[in-house]
């Protein structure tokens, strides 16, 4: 093999380099060989610097850390400092940076690299090197001030691409918060403003980001002139100065006074720039009111004309300023692209907080936006209104009502539900509007009966807010109610039911007029107890409602006086996310008499009604402060909406539900910010949505009336299997779940088991029952330790299970009893609060594709280098690699995490996985994926379904889904039995016969659900010349 290393001074041939590479990546190459390769490469680098050699050297350093210092020095002295080619110098910088990445002891060495070198490279003539260096500047640990200077300078570059990168770099520097020098900040800000007039769209949009980032720093750093800068920033956002700086880019350099031309960014011709502009506008939270008002009117306002000034902006430019600010938001809201309209709607959220007058004007526009043709924009407008309502800036007027209430009849569920959320909070000025809203809600109810629960809830809330109007409405309608109640008390009419809900809310409003609701109304309402209590789950449970109604039907004066005593209770600053457990806890903690319970029912209600919408304004304002909350809040909003769609699932609007869920997913996909802890939350929510999606699909099969075409047995089985899988992932892939949250997940597990047991056709009752009982015992232990009140469903399941255990096993499998259980289930809202971590793995095989396969010798083992990144794993997690070949033969390798560094949040390592049974072929494809054992006792049962046939990975699928499904437990179990080979062969795991599993943890149970499964097709190619043998013992 020595002849592979040429001793001459000739440049190394590609073949030689390739063979070097093989040696380098093979962990069993003797150290002496590696050293000699290193020397050859170094020599070659001295003579003829070459990027391939550089690559090899950096690879060598990453694999043989004992040599990394030598390599580092060699690259630095031979390539970086002596090279004449700028490109090569840049590449060697890259190599140095990546070497120091893998070897932390070199991090000081990279710091010692001269900044001047970097800078001089930047000043070289090669544009691609320049842009590459600027983009990667962070890797080289250049001092922030130097970096800032560089970026600032390169904003003058004639190449637009470089300008854009420089601007992006400036945004990056601004985030570090190191720069405090005022004139520096100002310089960056002004330079970015100049570039707002650039010829290139990309540069303009980068400039907007930069102006926004530095402008906000400027605003924050100038306390005394805050408003001035804020206005300046705001106005700048809207227009740009094409001043003399631009004549550089414009050959047509006029010298007339109009050189200094203003042009609005919000009116830019490029859609990307417009979106960016409105996004940036939405970040400013301090602007003069008159500027704001002007943005809503295309004409220059009369007041502004009189004053001849706009906010804090200089007066001499008034005309141009005013005409530019004029109507910018209007333009944004009627833009051709829905992206722009949506962004403009969104920007209103922060802006409406600033000024009430502006909010009023903006509302007029927003109401019109409700007529937009894009659902996204309509929804965004409604969400903005919801924000306004929570800030107390939503003043609804009669003229708005047609449009606004029209959305209650929208065919889209989300739109309707968003409108109702606003209605809950809104304060209506007079009884006409109140009646109008009521009628629209009734119309909504008649057209979309599936909304009933939510509508009742809205009625109840509005009733609480408008006690006086309720009383007069009810008094007029009492005859109608009485008529309906005559005879058999059947309140079938939606209208009458709605009136009743409205009526019973009156005693909880603040006025003194409560007593005027005739008590008999409350007794009528009792007949609708089920329907009403379903709607009011966020406020009180059925028992409390019953107690409340019966008390009121005796005398309404009671509640009024009682309530006044309770006024002082602290209120929760939560808008409409209710945590029912809070209050119900105390009640059930002790024994009480029935009358006490009634009072408590009322007190529960009261503590809710105290959460008046207008009082919420202050705490909500602080939401903007924390980035984390900014993500958590919308996530929780989504989760709240998920809860809201339960009735739709229940009533079988499966397609609609699925569509809605898809929308949620899209919405979630927008939270890409990687601020602390939110990634886990987003991933969790996505997973949760998956669960709900499967649940919705399953539910379809349990609807009485639905006739499902071609829904074979298999289909339900399949979906239930998927549901199981998703739930298992939900349980095993996230750390940091609270007891309550775990409980909610377990409740879903219980539900899944129950669903299985309902169907006679599915013949696995024993296993499912077992799973059910283990889950219940887990639930009970949680309930005990966290002292939580179980939901009705959980307690009913527990009861049934007790019953089953006592009776014989024959009777236990009565599907009907389980079907009964389903009635008790309702989806409770999931609230994310703490930090969630997602256990995640990424697996890549570097430098491998069909063009560039790994060499192997057939029938001998081959080492497969895997770059593995693990997130949030601990050493207790048991990880496995699974490798399967085209012919389905599969092999597992255990990853002992103790060997791979400490249990940090993220650990990265390269692991050479041995694959033993290479086939007798010229090339073959191997799929590698990674899985984690999960140790729930209840998983065992899963293996009965599916079986190996079904869960075989698709051969050529790009995304192969979950590989290690339940059947793997089967394989593993067999290993430990005497005749494992035979059984393993039965299920297609024939490869094990040749090599017994190497390492095996004697854990009780090994099974599947995975991480993010990363599947890769590794192409291996036989090449006798280049072949080498892997040392199996290394593992």
């Amino acid at each position, binding site marked *: 093999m020595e002849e592979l290393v040429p001793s001459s001074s000739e440049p190394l041939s590609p073949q030689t380099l390739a063979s070097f590479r093989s040696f380098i990546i093979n962990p069993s190459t003797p150290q002496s060989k590696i050293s000699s390769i290193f020397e050859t490469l170094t020599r070659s680098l001295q003579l003829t610097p070459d990027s391939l050699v550089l690559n090899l050297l950096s690879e060598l350093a990453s694999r043989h850390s004992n040599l990394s210092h030598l390599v580092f020095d060699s690259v630095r002295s031979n390539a970086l400092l002596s090279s004449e080619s700028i490109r090569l110098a840049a590449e060697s910088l890259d190599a140095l940076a990546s070497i120091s990445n893998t070897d932390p002891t070199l991090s000081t060495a990279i710091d010692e690299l001269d900044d001047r070198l970097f800078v001089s490279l930047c*000043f070289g*003539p090669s544009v691609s090197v*320049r842009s590459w260096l600027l983009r990667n500047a962070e890797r080289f640990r250049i001092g922030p001030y130097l970096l800032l200077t560089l970026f*600032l*300078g*390169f*904003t*003058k*570059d004639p190449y637009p691409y470089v300008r854009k990168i420089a601007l992006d770099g400036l945004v990056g520097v601004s985030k570090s918060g190191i720069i405090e020098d005022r*004139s520096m900040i*100002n*310089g960056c800000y*002004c*330079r970015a403003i100049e570039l707002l007039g650039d*010829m290139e769209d990309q540069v303009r949009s980068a400039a907007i980001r930069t102006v926004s980032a530095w402008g906000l720093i400027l605003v924050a750093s100038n306390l005394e002139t805050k408003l001035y800068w804020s206005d300046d920033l705001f106005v700048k956002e809207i227009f740009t*100065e094409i*001043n003399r700086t631009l004549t*550089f880019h*414009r050959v*047509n350099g*006029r010298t*007339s*006074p*109009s*050189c*200094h*031309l203003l*042009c609005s960014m919000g*009116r830019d*011709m490029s859609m990307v720039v417009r979106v960016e502009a409105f996004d940036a506008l939405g970040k400013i939270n301090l602007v003069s009111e008159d500027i704001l008002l002007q943005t809503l009117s*295309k*004409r220059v306002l009369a007041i502004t004309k009189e004053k001849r000034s706009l906010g804090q*902006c*200089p007066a*001499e430019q008034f*005309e*141009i300023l005013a*005409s530019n600010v004029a*109507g910018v938001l*209007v333009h944004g*809201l*009627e*833009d*051709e*692209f*829905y992206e722009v309209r949506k962004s403009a709607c969104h920007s209103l959220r922060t802006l409406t907080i600033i000024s009430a007058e502006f909010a009023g004007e903006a509302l007029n*526009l927003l*109401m*019109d*936006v409700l*007529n*937009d*043709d*894009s659902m996204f924009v309509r929804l965004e407008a409604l969400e903005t209104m919801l924000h306004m309502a929570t800030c107390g800036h939503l003043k609804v007027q009669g003229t708005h009502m*047609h*449009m606004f209430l029209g959305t209650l*009849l*929208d*065919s889209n569920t989300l739109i309707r539900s968003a409108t109702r959320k606003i209605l809950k909070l809104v304060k209506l000025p007079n009884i006409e509007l109140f009646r109008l809203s009521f009628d629209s809600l009734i119309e909504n109810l008649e*057209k979309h009966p599936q909304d009933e629960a939510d509508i009742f809830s809205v009625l109840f809330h509005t009733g609480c807010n408008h006690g006086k109007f309720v009383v007069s409405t009810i008094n007029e309608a009492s005859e109608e109610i009485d008529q309906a109640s005559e005879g058999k008390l059947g309140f079938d009419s939606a209208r009458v039911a709605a009136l009743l809900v409205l009526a019973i809310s009156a005693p909880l409003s603040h006025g003194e007029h409560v007593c005027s609701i005739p008590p008999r109304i409350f007794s009528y309402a009792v007949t609708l107890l089920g329907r009403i209590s379903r709607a009011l789950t966020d406020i009180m449970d059925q028992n409390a409602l019953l107690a409340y109604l019966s008390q009121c039907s005796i005398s309404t004066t009671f509640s009024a006086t009682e309530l006044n005593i309770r006024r002082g209770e602290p209120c929760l600053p939560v808008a409409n996310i209710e945590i029912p457990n809070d209050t119900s806890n105390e009640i059930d903690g002790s024994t009480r008499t029935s009358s006490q319970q009634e009072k408590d029912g009322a007190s529960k209600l009261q503590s809710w009604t105290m959460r008046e919408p207008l009082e919420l304004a202050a705490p909500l304002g602080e939401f903007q402060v924390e980035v984390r909350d900014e993500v958590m809040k919308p996530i929780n909003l989504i989760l709240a909406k998920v809860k809201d769609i339960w009735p739709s699932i229940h009533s079988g609007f499966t397609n609609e539900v699925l569509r809605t869920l898809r929308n949620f997913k899209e919405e979630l996909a927008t939270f890409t910010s990687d601020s602390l802890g939110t990634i886990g939350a987003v991933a969790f929510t996505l997973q949760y949505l998956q669960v709900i999606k499967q649940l919705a699909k399953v539910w379809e099969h349990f609807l009485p009336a639905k006739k499902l075409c071609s829904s074979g047995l298999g289909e339900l089985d399949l979906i239930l299997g998927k549901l199981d899988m998703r739930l298992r992932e939900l349980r095993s892939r996230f750390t940091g779940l609270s007891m309550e949250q775990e409980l909610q997940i377990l409740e879903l597990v219980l539900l899944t088991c129950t669903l299985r047991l309902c169907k006679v056709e599915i013949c696995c009752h024993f296993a499912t029952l077992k799973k059910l009982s283990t889950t219940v015992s887990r639930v009970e232990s949680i309930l005990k330790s966290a002292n939580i009140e179980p939901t009705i469903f959980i307690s009913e399941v527990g009861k049934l299970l007790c019953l089953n255990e006592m009776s014989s096993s024959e009777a236990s499998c009565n599907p009907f009893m389980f079907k009964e259980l389903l009635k008790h289930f309702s989806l409770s809202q999931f609230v994310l609060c703490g930090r969630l971590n997602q256990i995640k793995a990424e697996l890549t095989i570097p430098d491998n594709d069909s063009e560039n396969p790994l060499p192997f010798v057939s029938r001998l083992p081959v080492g497969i280098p895997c770059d593995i990144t693990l997130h949030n794993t601990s050493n207790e997690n048991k990880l496995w690699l699974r490798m399967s070949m085209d012919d389905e033969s599969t092999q597992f390798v255990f990853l002992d995490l103790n060997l791979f560094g400490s249990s940090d949040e993220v650990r990265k390592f390269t692991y050479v996985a041995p694959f033993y049974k290479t086939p007798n072929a010229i090339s073959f494809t191997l799929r590698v994926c990674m899985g984690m054992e999960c140790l729930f006792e209840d998983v065992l049962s899963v293996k009965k379904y599916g079986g190996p046939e079904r869960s075989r990975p698709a051969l050529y699928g790009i995304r192969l889904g979950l590989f290690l499904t339940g059947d793997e437990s089967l394989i593993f179990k067999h290993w430990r039995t005497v005749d494992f080979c035979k059984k393993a062969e039965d299920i297609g795991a024939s490869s094990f016969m040749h090599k017994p599993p190497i390492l095996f943890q004697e854990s009780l149970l090994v099974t599947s659900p995975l991480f993010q499964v990363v599947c890769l097709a590794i192409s291996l190619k036989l090449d006798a010349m280049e072949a080498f043998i892997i040392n199996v013992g290394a593992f």
Partner: protein
Amino acid sequence: MAIDSLVLGAGQQVGKSCVVVSMNGKRIMFDCGMDMAYHDHRRYPDFSRISNSGDFDSALTCIVITHFHLDHIGALPYFTEVCGYSGPIYMTYPTKALAPLMLEDYRKVMVERRGEEEQFTSEHIVECMKKVIAVDLKQTVHVDKDLWIRAYYAGHVLGAAMFYAKVGDTAMVYTGDYNMTPDRHLGAAQIDRLQLDLLISESTYATTIRDSKYGREREFLKAVHKCVAGGGKVLIPTFALGRAQELCILLEDYWERMNLKIPIYFSSGLTMQANMYYKMLISWTSQKVKETYSTHNAFDFKHVLNFDRSMIAAPGPCVLFATPGWLSGGFSLEVFKHWAPSEMNLVTLPGYCAAGTIGHKLMSGKPTKIDLDKNTQLDVRCQIHQLSFSPHTDAKGIMDLVKFLSPKHVILVHGEKPKMATLKGRIHSELGIPCDDPANNETVSISSTHYVKARASDTFIHSSLNPNFKFSKSISEDESGSCLKDRRFMPQLQVTDERTAEGILIEEKNKKAKILHQDELLLMLGEKKHEVRFAYCCPINVSNLEETKSTSDNVLCTSDRCSWLQLLNNKLSGEISGGNIQDFGEHLQVESFDISVCLNDKCPYRIIDTQNKSEAVFFCCTWSVADEKLAWKIISIMDNFDCESH
């Protein structure tokens, strides 16, 4: 070189758009419209002004038509078939498809209804259309070797385009009619940032600023919904193309969302055929329509049905689109007669109705009785809703476009004179761009750009490759009174990149222009570098000069000179902090400031007529411009310096 724009129509008026632009030897006619208000020769542009001989083929390079409205295309068949122009004609694909429909419809109305003499025949239209070359958006078309044109999206109507034309270095844009805000079926005008010598823009709404379109849509939908909810019938008289589709999309969308089941009808005829064109020409519509057409073509109206004459009297609510738009006759008037007497019904009218039509009568006041003709009178009890949708841009849109393009000159056409004058003033004062609003048959001449192609020297290219930026802090007061003034409290950080500023353009006789790097200049010219220096011979009083002189025979010895300089040096280094004073023995140097003792009594730089020159020693100072401030500082120090010798 100059661009001459001859305005043949739409000069200070709305109607018969026609502008002939001559630039760099090419002549382009933009639009060839007719004026609907006249029925004699005035309806056409005065073509004789293009060429007296009538040889239009040699007088015009090409004709460019922006869109299919008659005031932009109406005179085209007449010009080609009757006047005999046979050169190329350019228009967009949709315009080519829809223009014959419009022309044919107009011809029919003229000939068959009004019994007028035919100006052109159906065959003329067909023949004319054969000469048309269709172009696509943003497609650059080489009309001939020098002239090329390109179409940009203009909104307004289906297929409307703005045209960019370029001959050599001279470039211009003719907008035709355009709309800067999108509507339900068409997008907003869209154009690149171009370097223009001339922009010819329409100015229909030169002073109007329109409010949000949402308000208008809301009013319309509210009125229609209220009417049909009450069981009434809605009559929407429109012309076949444009407005009908927009309103119909609006209604469809609303119907869909509100789940309304009330039928919407289209009266048969042109409209259905037009819908078909709209469906085919999807790429010319708005973003929304384009995005969604793969799942649902917005012009596949789900709720729209064909209307049958027998349904006029049928009971129940409905919405009907009927032609023509102004209730000037035809089917819409027939339906109106039936529906007007009921208060439940609603008639919507377009924003503008020609005088003399029923529509116009309905708009003026609220008549209860309308005379259909001499004998019939109609009771009008139905509600009337006036639409204010317009496909033209408003004043703000025009300003935005002018701002965006910032051409060197603007000409306004297609508007009313007083309003155009106001807009002209605004463009001039706010944007600083010269602007004209010529009347018909006037010619505006403006100068055009001429570029010089230059070779660049290697050194210059080389120096341009490497970034060479500098930072400077400047007090921003001298910066053309910009808003930066307000930041007087802090000096401005400026970034400059001198790369191109280092170049020098050389134009030698009979040689191509060349750009050199500034360092190369002297070499090329074979000249030496000249430097301008200031000089001043500064006296310093020396009290005990006599003493010293006596010892040295009136001649200052070298050592004395040096000692004085030494003294001065000490003084200066005390006064100038941080100044780098270099002592060369014979002279002192601070930056470029040079001081030496002057022995020449007739030194030309001596300004002060020194009577008692014996009392003073003279120092000759020279310095270059760059160090002027420093120089005056040193001189003032020297002035106050009383040299106490030894």
